[in-house]
């Protein structure tokens, strides 16, 4: 199989949705599993972080975050000018693509692990750092500088949002407790991680099936954007990672992060901060097209690209 077996659960959910099965995953289970995944990813990153000198990361982080800011800044004019989207919609979609998808990251990590390919453990730190700047950029783009934005509330919404809070909280706990302190929790947070991811993907398949209608209404431009944007961003990610000196696995992961579009943190934040934007567009593209594209084709493609670039640089 070219893709991670866990992706089959996404396809099962998609099939159930399309067949209009009575399979429903309770909303509470969705929330519980997403809490679990966020915490577990944070913990794992924190344990890795404890092994590295934090200072060394700062330089890498500055570059990785700065380059990533190009993604929403480039996506916005494309959507606005070429796509003819309203300012708010273009800004919101740009924010979704500038931010990152935790689940896509997890599938990519599993795919690498399944092939025995190593990757820098502290990449989770970048996952956390990449999640929110694009949301702030999206709000700035939507406001167009013209109106006072309720920045206090928006920053609170983003920084105290549950994604950031659990990822950062997990990081800090993992870092403070270290691998030994966390060990008795491994059985829940690490051993079950992939099974939980499978369950979550089943759920996302069901949800994605419900978004396909929205997409048909959104038209061809958004479809093309949802396929080409991740490729462009993924290439940017692979290049940045290679320059910064990541391993092939690490470069594939950073490419995946750049290429992925947020559908947990971004929808929640944009709905409050840019209410005029139509969420059917951004979520339809991010979850209905880009997410499955990345799972099935994108991840292997970014890995291939990372391998090529690595060869060139070394």
């Amino acid at each position, binding site marked *: 199989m070219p893709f991670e077996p866990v992706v089959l659960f996404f396809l099962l959910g998609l099939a159930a949705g399309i067949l209009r099965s009575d399979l429903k995953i309770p909303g509470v289970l969705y929330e519980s599993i997403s809490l679990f995944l966020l915490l577990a990813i944070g913990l794992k990153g924190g344990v890795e972080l404890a092994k590295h000198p934090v200072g060394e990361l700062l330089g890498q982080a500055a570059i990785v975050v700065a380059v990533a800011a190009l993604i929403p800044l480039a996506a916005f004019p494309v959507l606005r000018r070429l796509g003819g989207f309203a300012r708010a919609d273009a800004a919101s979609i740009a924010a979704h693509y500038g931010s990152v998808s935790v689940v896509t990251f997890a599938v990519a990590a599993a795919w690498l692990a399944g092939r025995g390919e190593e990757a820098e453990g502290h990449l989770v730190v970048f996952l956390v750092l990449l999640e929110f700047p694009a949301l702030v950029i999206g709000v700035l783009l939507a406001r167009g500088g013209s109106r006072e934005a309720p920045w206090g509330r928006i920053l609170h919404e983003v920084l105290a949002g549950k994604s950031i809070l659990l990822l950062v909280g997990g990081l800090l706990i993992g870092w403070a407790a270290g691998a030994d302190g966390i060990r008795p929790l491994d059985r829940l947070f690490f051993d079950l991680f992939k099974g939980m991811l499978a369950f979550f993907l089943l*759920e996302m398949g069901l*949800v994605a099936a*419900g978004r396909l209608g929205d997409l048909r209404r959104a038209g061809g431009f958004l479809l093309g954007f949802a396929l080409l944007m991740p490729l462009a961003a993924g290439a940017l990610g692979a290049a940045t990672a290679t320059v910064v000196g990541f391993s092939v696995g690490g470069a594939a992961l950073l490419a995946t992060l750049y290429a992925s579009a947020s559908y947990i943190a971004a929808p929640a934040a944009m709905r409050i901060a840019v209410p*005029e934007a139509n969420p059917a567009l951004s979520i339809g593209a991010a979850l209905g097209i880009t997410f499955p594209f990345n799972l099935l084709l994108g991840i292997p493609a970014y890995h291939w690209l990372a391998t090529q670039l690595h060869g060139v640089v070394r």
Partner: protein
Amino acid sequence: MSQTNPTHDAPPTRKLLTLVCEATLEPLLTHDLPALGAHGYTITDARGRGDHGERDGAWPAAANIRIEVICDEATARAIVAFVQQRYYANYGMVAWLSDVEVLRPAKF
């Protein structure tokens, strides 16, 4: 806190305002309602269908809530005017009002 003052004999009536809207709005509305004069509210999780399509509650972005507020007529009108101005254009939301007879009218 202006309250309609029913005649001595009639049972004490108030307005029941019911709002159904996107779950995203919960933190905003629970902040707005007391500021607009509501002494309390009750929320339940809901799903449904309307002009914004089906919202089946499968994930947070597709979840609704149903808020009830018992209050005097002036407060109800103030809340309705506020949410209409603030949220109606951009969010899935419906609202309706009815007359109810309340116990302990001083509470509302």
